[in-house]
């Protein structure tokens, strides 16, 4: 690891009733890299995301973001620190236009005291919003109700909203799921560009092997709630344990 860790998870465990979703998971996301997280369905990937960003309290273990222990913080507090997640089921504000979705995602909204809550937003926000809508190719549709956009376009909008928020670390839950294969290449390019150009560290859950092998600097593999393997894409691809987990070998 050449860079210092931006996110560190130490021995995190989470169970729902008798179901152990995560058991003693430890991982490190180095600053400025793209880290992939793979695993068969039900292996606990989304649960891990939810515990990291504070949706589910941890049973035990610690989460450090930029060296700060955050496992007791609430979702919005963690988001304001600069760690953001997108959702597997795309979530945008469907009753608002694309532009409004972008404006409301500005990090300026994080500052909410009595004087700022009632004010407008400076013109820089609009400029940035236009740039990012252009970046994901939704500029022409910026004044349409975002609920009327296609699923793939909503995914792109959600991604643009995340970028608008200027996070330090972005957790993406299956960014390419449900997206037309021809659009996927464009999305990979944009993810890489966001990482290089805007300096955002990415931690990506992805089912599509081609995508994750292309994208990630290193990959973690979960199975049955346990950390199965960690390594470079090539190593993971040829790891017998990973292959067994995916193909269901006993």
């Amino acid at each position, binding site marked *: 690891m050449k860079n210092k860790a931006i996110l560190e998870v130490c021995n995190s465990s989470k169970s729902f009733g008798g179901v152990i979703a995560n058991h003693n998971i430890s991982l490190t996301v180095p600053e400025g890299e793209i880290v992939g997280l793979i695993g068969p369905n039900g292996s606990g990937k989304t649960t891990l995301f939810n515990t990291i960003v504070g949706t589910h309290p941890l049973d035990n273990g610690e989460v450090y973001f930029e060296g700060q222990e955050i496992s007791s913080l609430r979702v919005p507090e963690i988001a304001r620190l600069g760690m953001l997640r997108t959702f597997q089921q795309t979530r*945008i*504000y469907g009753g608002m236009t694309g532009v409004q979705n972008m*404006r409301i995602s500005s990090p300026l*909204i994080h500052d*909410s005291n009595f004087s700022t*809550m009632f004010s407008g937003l400076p013109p820089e926000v609009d400029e940035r919003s236009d740039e990012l809508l252009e970046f994901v190719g939704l500029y022409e549709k910026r004044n349409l*109700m975002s609920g009327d956009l296609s699923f793939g376009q909503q995914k792109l909008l959600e991604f643009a909203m995340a970028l608008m928020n200027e996070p330090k670390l972005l957790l993406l839950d299956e960014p390419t799921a449900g997206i037309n294969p021809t659009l996927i290449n464009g999305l990979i390019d944009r993810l890489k560009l966001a990482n290089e150009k805007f300096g955002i560290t990415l931690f990506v859950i992805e089912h599509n092997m081609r995508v994750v092998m292309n994208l990630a600097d290193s990959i973690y593999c979960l199975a049955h709630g346990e950390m199965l393997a960690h390594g470079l894409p090539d190593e993971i691809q040829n790891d017998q344990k990973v292959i067994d987990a995916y193909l269901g070998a006993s």
Partner: protein
Amino acid sequence: MSTTSTGNTGSTNPLLYIVILAFGIAAPFVMPAYIQQVSFLWIFILFALTWDLQGGQMGYNSFGNIVFFGTGMYVSASTQVALYFDLGAWNESGGENTFIHATDEYFIGLAAGLVLSGIVAAALAAFLGSGILGLRGQYFAICTLGLSVAAGEIAAGIDLIGAGSGMSTPVWPDAADSVIERGTFFYILCFMLAVATFIACKYLYSGRFGMVLNAIRDDEDKAEAMGIHTTRYKALSWTISAFFLGISGAIMGNIIGFIDPVDVAFTGATFGVWMVLMAILGGKGTLWGPVLGAAIFHIMQELFWTYFLGWQRVALGLLIILIVVFLPQGILGSLREHFPEWFGHRLEPVAVEDEK
């Protein structure tokens, strides 16, 4: 209607403002016989606008906003009386009022009552809101419904404010008639308050406040995940509604002159439901929808009273059913659905035709 804008997009034809303001100013001269009906119209517009601040813009359907109306009514009446007399003795004397406010006492008391009613109602909303705004969807609706029922019962149990037998407000001083008539005076208050509420809403919806409310309505979990202080905005939205509702209650109490805890103050079954319907009829989640809805609803209601006397409740019930079945999005909401380009939702600049 195509010139009116909704929510945060588009612009409003200034002619519309001029027409409405002209109507508001001319009404007491042109139709003095209907001055109380028009006063109520302004209050109804306020009801619909303040309800929509939660129900339409924020997606929190409140059936309890009437609590702030009734609270304001009682706070104002109590203040007006208690400034000069003993509140308990006033209410014990019942309808046979032996206490008379002098002209200056009346107006100073009223001014203090109006201000305090807004402040107390707002404080109550902030307090209640910090607790129950954590509830979502139908749980919030049921909880607020409970609040509105409970409030009437609680008020009916407090002897100091007249308990179940109600409370009368100070009598209008006859000496003031030489300056302004009672009906005209309260009409002006209603009109000014409705205009102030509209301006407040318009201002709120034009900035980040309205956007945050919309974000909460569309997906509150997402809003939290984006780092928005959702609780703060939710509580503040309710507080603002309560402030205006409290003052409107204070004015209504004085117009009617007698406060019954269940039939006048905490009227959950009439005003409490109507404020929801008016906003839905016009188009919830829009700025002009509640105004339009309140106007139509009020006119229909008065017509039913005039032409279907005896059946007016049935006719009103039928109207409610028709609204919910055929116009679930409301008038402006349906227009926006069918003609999105009127509201600025169009492709621009024209893009290459691709999958939609």
